[in-house]
């Protein structure tokens, strides 16, 4: 545990050193990046030891804050969340070092690195905290640090608005967490987590209230649908390495929070909790991916895809709760393991996708898919990385994305096979089936439109692969995905990981399943390699020329005639029209010889523009009426005093005895 504290210290001091470096950007970046990488690696050591040994390590310090005590511990659940957190933090720090260099002139790079390291430190604290006050302080400091990172480029109005929405959403979310820990603290008599775990007489109503508060509070951070509104605003606004960290890891802390609360309320759950999570998960998944299909900005699309993935995880959790309550140990444990695996996989995938999007932004200056195209020709490495990640997130076999969803679905099917809680299984299967198809559509669209074909606009023609540091990061992450994909089945058949993920042993003999799956993955990889060799062999001797693409008789095909992102997604979106509102701007062709015409279509998030905007406007108007009270005449002010006095005197003499 001292190593973890040392790591936190390193992160803090390097952040302050970065600020002290002030205007000298190189020193600030060097301090920040080295601090982040050193801190992360230092912290990884105790985490790996806990994962290997499976026994938690704890540390405690008295703290003069009311109700608080500096109590931290790493147990297998925390360790599981720390691995992607620290890994991604180190990698994005290296990437960010080069990425922010472009902004050297505009503003000093000290504060961004301070907030980056502070964000990493507070995220680590959130995961290891075992006292409510420490947890809440780390939670809100994490939100504040990430707010400053999101509004790094606050000269742009859109970034400022996104930052504001983000801060308000996270603060209101924390209000629910305050209530949650007040309720649990009251029931347990103390704010320490292990006292909360052993609440003897937790009444069902109290447990339900606590659960609902946790779902709303942590759901806001996890980006589940009714509370997801800030995510598609904040993540695209942030610099890419920050949005990689936010989408990859910070969103998962919401999931961690729900898991921890379920741990605290263990034993007093009820079945409908699982149903609620499945419902939220299904809606988040479907709505998230449909909105992603409607977006024309690459980073917004990736942000919405995060909403979808947290939906998947929520469905996994829901299934595990339903399985747990209706007495289905291995259905619960399969879904639980699937959800945890998806947390790790998605952190890796979404991190790489955002970094690749950042490389495209860094090179071409835009992430608007309607103007990009043919980027792969000048950025082969980034294209390869993006394709690997897209294939993995679409759950294609040889890669790691597939294993997570396999476990969740296996849990659902296990429920069906045992004829128990089949409806929950059915709901998850239907939702996951549809979502998997749409995810494939979304990411083929993203990769195809941005990287393949011809550039649709002058801006997309320039740009090359990012500088070596960023390129190495992309390659390392892509390599990690492939290696993890191939190695995961074998690793899962080993007892170590099974204990961490609490995988069931016995009825569906999990070890055999993963051994066979590993074999299948290896076989498929060999087949791929063989087919490629065969193709090369066949073409070796033959004439390979190049000729224009088949244009079906068009005289002069221009790149503008290519399928755009919105036209590719139009058939699906028209199917789900009521769910996703498309705002269409048409400049219709005028006159017999139209000079120009334009059509732009963008998916508008009804939650933000309809529900929340209406609520806030109504609140503003409603409260505005009371502003008349302060209208400036002193006579009325004195009258207010007199009226209050008379009212209180009447209350004092008549009402209260």
């Amino acid at each position, binding site marked *: 545990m001292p190593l973890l504290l040392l790591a936190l210290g390193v992160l803090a001091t390097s952040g302050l050193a970065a600020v002290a470096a002030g205007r000298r950007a190189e020193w600030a970046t060097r301090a920040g990046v080295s601090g982040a990488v050193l801190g992360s690696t230092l912290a990884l050591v105790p985490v790996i030891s806990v994962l290997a040994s499976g026994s938690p390590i704890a540390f405690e310090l008295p*703290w*003069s*804050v*009311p*109700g*608080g005590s500096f109590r931290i511990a790493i147990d297998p659940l925390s360790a599981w969340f720390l691995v992607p957190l620290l890994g991604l933090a180190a990698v994005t720090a290296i990437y960010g070092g080069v990425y922010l260099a472009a902004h050297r002139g505009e503003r000093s790079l000290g504060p961004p690195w301070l907030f980056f390291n502070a964000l990493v430190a507070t995220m680590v604290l959130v995961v290891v905290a075992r006292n409510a*006050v420490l947890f*809440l*302080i780390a939670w*809100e*400091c994490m*939100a*504040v640090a990430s707010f400053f990172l999101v*509004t790094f480029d*606050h*000269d742009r*109005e859109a970034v*400022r608005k996104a*930052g*504001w929405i983000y*801060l*308000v959403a996270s*603060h*209101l979310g*924390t*209000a629910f967490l*305050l*209530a949650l820990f*007040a*309720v649990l*603290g*009251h029931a347990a008599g103390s704010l320490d987590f292990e006292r909360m775990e052993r609440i003897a007489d937790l009444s069902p109503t109290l447990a339900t209230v606590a659960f609902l508060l946790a779902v709303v509070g942590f759901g806001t951070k996890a980006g589940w649908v009714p509370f997801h509104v800030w995510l598609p605003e904040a993540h695209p606004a942030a610099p890419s390495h920050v949005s990689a960290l936010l989408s990859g890891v910070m969103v998962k802390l919401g999931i961690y929070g729900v898991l921890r609360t379920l741990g605290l309320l263990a034993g007093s759950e009820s079945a409908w909790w699982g149903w609620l999570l499945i419902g939220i998960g299904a809606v988040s998944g479907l709505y998230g991916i449909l909105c992603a299909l409607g977006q024309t900005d690459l980073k917004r699309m990736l942000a919405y895809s995060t909403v979808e993935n947290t939906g998947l995880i929520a469905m996994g959790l829901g299934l595990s709760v339903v399985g747990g309550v209706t007495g289905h140990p291995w259905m619960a444990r399969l879904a639980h393991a699937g959800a945890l695996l998806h947390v790790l996989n998605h952190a890796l995938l979404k991190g790489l996708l955002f970094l690749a999007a950042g490389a495209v932004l860094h090179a071409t200056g835009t992430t608007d898919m309607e103007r990009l195209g043919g980027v792969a020709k000048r950025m082969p490495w980034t294209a390869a990385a993006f394709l690997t990640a897209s294939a993995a997130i679409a759950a294609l076999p040889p890669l790691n994305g597939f294993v997570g969803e396999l476990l969740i679905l296996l849990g659902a099917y296990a429920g069906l096979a045992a004829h128990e809680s089949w409806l929950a299984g059915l709901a998850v299967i239907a939702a996951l089936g549809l979502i998997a198809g749409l995810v494939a559509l979304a990411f083929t669209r993203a990769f195809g439109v941005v990287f393949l074909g011809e550039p649709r606009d002058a801006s997309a023609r320039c740009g090359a692969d990012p500088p070596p540091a960023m390129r190495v990061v992309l390659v390392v992450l892509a390599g990690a995905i492939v290696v993890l994909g191939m190695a995961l089945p074998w690793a899962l058949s080993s007892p170590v990981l099974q204990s961490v993920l609490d995988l069931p042993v016995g009825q569906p003999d999990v070890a055999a399943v993963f051994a066979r799956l590993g074999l299948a993955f290896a076989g498929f990889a060999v087949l791929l390699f063989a087919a490629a060799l065969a193709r090369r062999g066949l073409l070796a001797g033959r004439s390979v020329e190049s000729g224009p693409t088949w244009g079906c008789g068009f005289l002069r095909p221009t790149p503008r005639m290519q399928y755009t992102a919105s036209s590719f997604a139009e058939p699906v979106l028209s199917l789900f029209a009521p769910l996703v509102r498309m705002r269409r701007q048409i400049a219709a062709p005028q006159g017999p010889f139209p000079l120009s015409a334009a059509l732009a279509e963008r998916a508008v998030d009804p939650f933000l523009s309809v529900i929340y905007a209406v609520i*806030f406007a109504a*609140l*503003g108007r409603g*409260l*505005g009426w*009371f*502003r008349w*009270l*302060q209208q400036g005449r*002193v006579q009325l*002010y*004195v009258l*207010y*005093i007199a009226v*209050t*006095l008379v009212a*209180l*005197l009447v209350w*004092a*003499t008549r009402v*209260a005895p």
Partner: protein
Amino acid sequence: MLLALLLVPTLCGLAAFGLRASRPRRALLVLAALVHAGLTLAAWRRPPAPVWQGSLALDPPGLLFLALTSVLFLAAALYAVGYLAREEAGRRADFEEQFLFANQPEAVFTGCLLLFLATMTLVAVSQHFVILWIGIEATTLASAPLIYFHRQHRSLEATWKYLMVCSVGIGLALLGTFFLSVAAARPGAEPVPLLLSELMAHAGELESSWLRLGFVLLLVGYGTKMGLAPLHTWLPDAHSESPSVVSALMSGALLNCAFLGVLRAYQVCGAAGLARWCGTLLTFFGLFSLALAAVFLLGQTDYKRLLAYSSVEHMGILALGVGLGGSATFGALLHAVNHSLAKAMLFLAAGNILGMYRTKAVHEVRGVLGVLPVTGALWLAGLLVITGSPPFGMFLSEFTILRAAVEQGRGGVAALYLVLLGVIFVGLSTAMLGMVQGQPPALAGAPRGRDRWLAVGPPAALGLGLLVLGVWIPPTLDALLRAAAHALGSP
């Protein structure tokens, strides 16, 4: 020792009226502030002996608020030296309506400032209810001329409203004191003297119906001075029109003194077993203040009025904390400490912004981080403090009050409290974030304004104190807070 605490500022104040040259007068101001702080520190280490048969004595709540007033006055004095140096003599154009106006002669301003400190000290040390009343009335009279520093019609209007509303309020407090003395007149033996210790000792024999009416009158009287809604009407006008130094002192220290008045009355009622009854009154006022502050903070366009309404909100939280009783009293006192430091820091920072941008409209101020980096950082830190976000101290106190509300099973109060805090956060963040971020408009002054040392030092020091309080409460302060909470009847 106590008399020294009172006499030093009074004499310096009177001397300041006489001093013609401004440089020695400013030195006197800072000197008096330093001496007062030194005396307070000494009083903290070794509580001084009561004076005047116990009428003036320093008990834990008094010491707490005295220390706060002293620290704030020191910071304000240092800031004032820089501020007065920059305020050029003669007539200048008003930046809103462009008419010409002259400032109040500096001697009057400095003198009144020192008298203001003296009166606040009197309130902090007084144990006798009438002396307490005299002290609070004196604070009003000492601070009225301070509001009228910029001699133009808006600040005159603010001064008149301040005088009229507060005087009526405090008149009611006097009536309340008389009701208290009626309650203390035991039919048989001779009446209990209006000393706090005596009243608490003989609390059982006090006639409860007069005591109740007395508490109501004292609550309304001192509540007006404290800024509880709907008696708060003078507060936004006074704070937006007076110079930032004065609004910092008023928000940070004066409201606390009025709060001390309410606490004294609450102590007596608590001893007489009316704690529950008074608690409901205080809780009502607390929630009503929070609601009203939420109404006026949402869509507020003047950032000094924004801070004023935030003061109304925090006074509401204090009243709610004391009203709930139990561990919430400790939370309320900790909240008072945090609020005083935070509000003083914010008003001083607002002064810097006003000096550079020459406007009080929120939407006309942009990119403070670009023009005045340190002030911008302080402004952002201030937003985090007053909205109760960690790593600053107010989060702890607000969470303690919430836990107390939940522990007493008052779910409705807790829910309403959280909802109102949420709405207030939206109002504050909309206004204050817009000012700090973005491109600064083309300013007449230096494009990259230099943060003067004197203008930024005091608020930065207060900010540092807040950051420390957020993470670690020094043991001595913790002991003092617990003693004060115990004096207020919490277990």
